[in-house]
């Protein structure tokens, strides 16, 4: 017996965000449909040193975790600060969006978002240097994510830039 009152049925933490995967095979509508049914979450802002075990422990608090896929640098094949967490049920994933998103893992505020579903290849960073795009352009120094962003590293190290 739900309240049928739109004004009271707010559940904003589980709404889909504005992000759409540009490499998604299919149109916007299809992607959104999958996002709204998905039990898979993208998790971002991880430290490069955060392990699968830590992610398991944290995300198990909202339900049984089916699978974790750690995001990898495309070239180095090492962790590059994101992962996918797949639950057995949508309800458990929703609780993660409500209660684990925006809290800390390895002292960092992590961010979760709906994902349309893991496909081979999506575990790799899409930045030019092999990691995530955000690590190409950021200008701050983050010791848990390789220090300075790639562009900033090149700027700080002009000799490197001139080497062909």
């Amino acid at each position, binding site marked *: 017996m739900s309240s049928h009152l739109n*004004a009271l049925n707010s559940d904003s*933490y*589980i*709404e889909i965000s504005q992000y759409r995967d540009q490499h998604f095979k299919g149109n916007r509508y299809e992607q959104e449909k999958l996002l709204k049914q998905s039990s898979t979450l993208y998790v971002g802002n991880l430290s490069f040193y955060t392990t699968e075990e830590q992610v398991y422990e*944290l995300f198990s608090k909202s339900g049984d975790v089916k699978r974790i896929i750690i995001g990898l640098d495309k070239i180095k094949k090492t962790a590059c600060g994101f992962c996918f967490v797949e639950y057995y049920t949508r309800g458990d994933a929703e609780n993660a969006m*409500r*209660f684990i998103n925006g809290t800390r893992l390895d002292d960092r505020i992590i961010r979760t978002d709906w994902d349309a579903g893991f496909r081979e290849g999506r575990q790799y960073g899409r930045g030019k240097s092999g990691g995530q795009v955000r690590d190409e352009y950021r200008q701050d120094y983050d010791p848990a994510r390789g220090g300075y962003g790639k562009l900033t590293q090149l700027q700080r190290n002009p000799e490197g830039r001139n080497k062909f």
Partner: protein
Amino acid sequence: MSRRRHADENDGGQPHKRRRTSEPVEIEDRLESLICRVGEKSTSSLESNLEGLAGVLEADLPNYKNKILRILCSVARVLPEKLTIYTTLVGLLNARNYNFGGEFVEAMIRQLKETLKSNFFSEAVYLVRFLCDLVNCHVIAAPSVVALFENFVCVTQEDDVPQVRCDWYVYAVLSSLPWVGKELYEKKDVEMDRLLSQIDGYLKRRQKTHVAMLQIWSAEKPHPQEEYLDCLWAQIQKLKKDRWQERHILRPYVAFDSVLCEALQHNLPPFTPPPHSDSAVYPMPHVIFRMFDYTDAPEGPVMPGSHSVERFVIEENLHCIIRTHWKERKTCAAQLLSYPGKSKIPLNYHIVEVIFGELFQLPCPPHVEVMYTTLLIELCKLQPGSLPQVLAQATEMMYMRLDTMNITCVDRLVNWFSHHLSNFQFRWSWDDWADCLTADPEKPKAKFVREVLEKCMRLSYHQRIVDIVPPSFAPLIPANPLFIYKYEDENSSTLPGYNAAITVGNAIKNRASNEEILTLLKDVPNPNHEDDDDEGESFNPLKIDVFLQTLLSLAAKSFSHSFSALAKFHEVLKTLTESDEGKLHILRVVCDVWKNHPQMISVLVDKMIRTQIVDCVAVANWIFSQDMTHEFTRFYVWEILHSTIRKMNKHVQKIQKELEDSKEKLEKQHQKDSGDEEDMEEDSQLEEQIERLQEKVESAQSEQKNLFLVIFQRFIMMLTEHLARCETGGTDLNTPWYKNCIERLQQIFLMHHATIQQYMGTLENLLFTAELDHHILAVYQQFCSLQA
């Protein structure tokens, strides 16, 4: 279109909703919004907002009466924390439009009937309370509410009904009295006295076997964990003594008294409680959680006493706020902290007490545990200067009282505290807890700290834990989660199977197939049987050791590596564990190699159940086996057992659902049948499928029942042995081990009560018979009393 139009850096917020609607829908949404939002922070006073809204609604009555009725009935049901705001609104409307008032009352009674039939008992209480408060707004005549109460209390005279049914009707009456007691007594004191005396009689004769199972602490000091009806009765008694003077509840209708007392009142139609039916599921009894009293808030307003009605109302309202807003933690925290009347009470203490009360509630918290952790973090963010201190004080208090805390609650406390610390760089004054170092390591405090550090490590890493605790705490630090390989180096070359292990290891590294591995393993001798059969197929523990130790050592790097390994060699593993002894041994090996990494043991056991390498009963037998005696009081062991039971339950539910769906499909098909051959074909296919599923359900349920039987049987054996030994030896039976064991037995009942209900007949006949030691039988009787 840019990929990121709105930066939602941390948690979600309210997105902007654009409406593309036609007029009437717009107006209806507006009405909803106006009604739902009245009472929120505003530049105008509550009174003027209510006045304004009443005017708007009155004007809209001709066109939108039904919609308005529906909205008001809904808010009465789902926004109980704003009860008096909405009763005032209804009062104002009734004063302007008598007919509308009458229709509203009728709609509410219909809604009450529906909620009771649908087992929504909490909401039914809110509806009753709403109707009662309408007396204060001159909408309903007091005598008709007294008549309603008389009908409710009559339920206590019914024969052959569960006690929990009568409990609810008594609770509905008592819990409304803080709002309306004064009015009812002014109009009908003789009848009310009679009512209360009947209730008193009922409360004196009702059974309270359940209390022991539901108490968070077993000690009476410093705060007794009172049974909920007993506590409420004491509060009402005190209120009566104070001549029903109640000063805490916000009553906007007082400001409108001159308008409201001009209104004509309605009588409640006679309401008979729906008769008891087998499908009725009444709320379980509970215990009132108290951890603070007036001595705890060091400065500022004093906390109302445990038997004051203010305490009841505050706690009710805070619980209602959480119930309404639990999905939106920022809103929930903000609403809790803006509780009206907060300047007169130590609000932070009330909030912390209510939250922990829910977290520790037995059998289960109303909401998922992690919600409470995150809610407390939000509250700390909003009140950084005061709330963290109250939380620290609460934690300290709970630590001091660990000796008598129910083990299920200790589990939850460990989970909460470790998760909370991980959000605050694990900062804690560990030295304050140095007393746990000198005590017996099996005692609750030492165990608690050890389990907390273990969980903290899972959320971080071993060295971090070493760094955050003082050196004196070294004995309690968890082991470094490293793999233990039996055939590690040349020192183990004398162990049987050493050579085979090397061979198998190389084969795996060279991508051998399952068949090739099985062939290699054929040569491994069986230490158990002299007369092994030709195939070498019987249970061979050495084969399992050699293969599994080697495989897991090669895959030890991460969970994913280990899962891949199990998947790749599924065939070999299934072959090795065909027998029950095989299943038990594989679990033994997993535990041996990963003794230092309980988290890995948990995930591997989970995977092995899901891939059917072991079954649930094997896991249960393994936990109660001799090998696991040393681990028996470790937290992770019980996590594994409960997770196993849950998997079994979900499995049964899944097949039951498939059966339901197929039956429904057949129904629909029958309705569309035109009698031709195609239809007959389809029908018979479906009927076959249903038969198969029926068999599957029965077999799954049989497995489930067996699982519980095995678990209970093992508990009974262990406990009986302990009790007998203590009796003959003349020693005190209340050892830390015994407390752990008997409470773990309770925990099985509590955490899976709904499922276990189905098998009560079998349990009573086979296991929980009168011959059992009364200590053990008491647990079963407490469980039965939860729904009695």
